[in-house]
């Protein structure tokens, strides 16, 4: 299908070898055309960017120095945020395991069941966390409960998806041996597949928790509790010194959690 003709060279002994032409120039051309039209459609304007960028630095300037006195009001919402993401991540990761098992085509031979559970997992994934949190606030009322549920749903979808991919890619040799010695499929999964996927599973759960801390920070925007509520409030009052304090606290917290998470994930590999 390549438009350009393949190039061939002749070796000294008379044999010819043909090189395939690279498709890269065509791909780059297509990308450039896409880029041009996306600029046209979204109305991206370089002049506005140049004119208004100064405002960005003004706001950053207002944030420095941050309002240190505000800090003691922030501890409670910060811990709420961490609690929300921790609880949601743990429950979600546990719940993801049976769902992922049922969505793995190499474990469950019943095709409609596998398709149904894959569909459920992808349906959950299409639901943005913010929307899930918003719906949860209607069901459970304003507060951290709603945030926990939203994070739970996201974790089930995310960890569940990665987990069933890991199960489907797992080496089935030991699994076959389990069957040959009289294990049921679930018992063979427990003995032969679980040891293979466990490090990956834990690593994904920890990575998901790490991301969830960041998500949880903005969930307050829709009333799901935590530090996002304070952020929304301070931005509403244009109190950039307070915003600066919140952001600084978030950066430090996320950095600490990321470092801990990275340490444990390295240990697992």
């Amino acid at each position, binding site marked *: 299908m390549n438009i350009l003709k393949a190039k061939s060279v002749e070796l000294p002994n008379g044999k010819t070898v043909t090189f395939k032409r690279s498709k890269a120039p065509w791909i780059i051309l297509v990308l450039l055309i896409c880029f041009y039209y996306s600029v046209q459609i979204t109305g991206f304007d370089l002049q506005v960017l140049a004119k208004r960028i100064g405002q960005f630095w003004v706001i950053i300037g207002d944030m420095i120095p941050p309002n240190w006195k505000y800090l003691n009001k922030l501890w409670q919402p910060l811990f709420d945020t961490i609690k929300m993401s921790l609880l949601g991540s743990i429950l979600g990761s546990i719940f993801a395991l049976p769902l992922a098992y049922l969505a793995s085509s190499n474990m469950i031979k019943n095709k409609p069941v596998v398709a149904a559970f894959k569909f459920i997992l992808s349906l959950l994934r299409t639901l943005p966390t913010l929307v899930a949190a918003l719906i949860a606030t209607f069901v459970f009322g304003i507060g951290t409960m709603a945030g926990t549920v939203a994070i739970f749903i996201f974790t089930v979808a995310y960890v569940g998806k990665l987990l069933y991919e890991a199960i489907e890619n797992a080496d089935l040799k030991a699994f076959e041996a389990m069957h040959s*010695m009289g*294990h049921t499929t679930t018992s063979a999964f427990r003995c032969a597949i679980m*040891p293979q996927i466990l490090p990956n599973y834990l690593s994904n759960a920890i990575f998901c928790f790490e991301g969830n801390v960041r998500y949880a920070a903005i969930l307050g925007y829709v009333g799901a509790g935590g530090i996002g509520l304070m952020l929304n409030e301070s931005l509403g009052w244009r109190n950039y010194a307070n915003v600066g304090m919140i952001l600084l606290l978030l950066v430090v917290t996320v950095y600490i959690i990321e470092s801990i998470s990275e340490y444990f994930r390295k240990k697992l590999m």
Partner: protein
Amino acid sequence: MIKFQNVNKKYDNGYEALKDINLTIEQGEYVAVIGLSGAGKSTLIRCINRMHDISSGSLLVNDVEVSTLKGKEIRKLRRGIGMIFQSFNLVNRISSLKNVLVSFVPDMPIWRKVLGLYTKKQKIEALEALDRMNILDKAFTRVDQLSGGQQQRVALARTLAQKPSIILADEPVASLDPITAKQVMTDFQRINEEMNMTIIINIHHVDLALEYATRVVGIRSGEIVYDGPASEVTEQILEHIYNGKLEEELSGN
């Protein structure tokens, strides 16, 4: 006793893997199944523990008709039959001991299965099985740290812990070097003699088959073309088992 009577096996794609197999193997025999790749050796032994279904005929294992078993009965049949594979099929990330302990799992209560908790008695039995295969010192080593020969011994220990009356081995020495292959064949011989277990081995190495097995079954395109003592296998018989197909194809052309 294993008894094949007029057994046929046709795969879903129409390929006839076994044609009218009649074969009786008594308890305690050491049988080597030889033949070209694709001749049906693997299919033959996998029918015995119902890893494959047969299409027609009758297959008795210890007086149980295998072809009509269902669910739980199949698992019960398999509990009494050990299986050894070419690539060992161990769980790589865990220790030898844990790999052996896995053979007790089907008979454990659910909560023990879920938590992976074994009794002291089971641990001692597993260690004994490892000791029997002379690999006790590697009990706590992860199996991916072991050599091929050592891994096959762990797999044998796993099978012994299951206390089967029959061991099926599908190319057990094909991925081992010649020296280790001999050792593993000797291990099979020891198990066969000491514990009176029936051993059925699929094997490509004819010299090993003739040296260790007491009986040889030759298969060519799904049919048994030789069945007799290993000591009576001659050059002509081997020619018949291996090159027969070649001759047919040559004459056909």
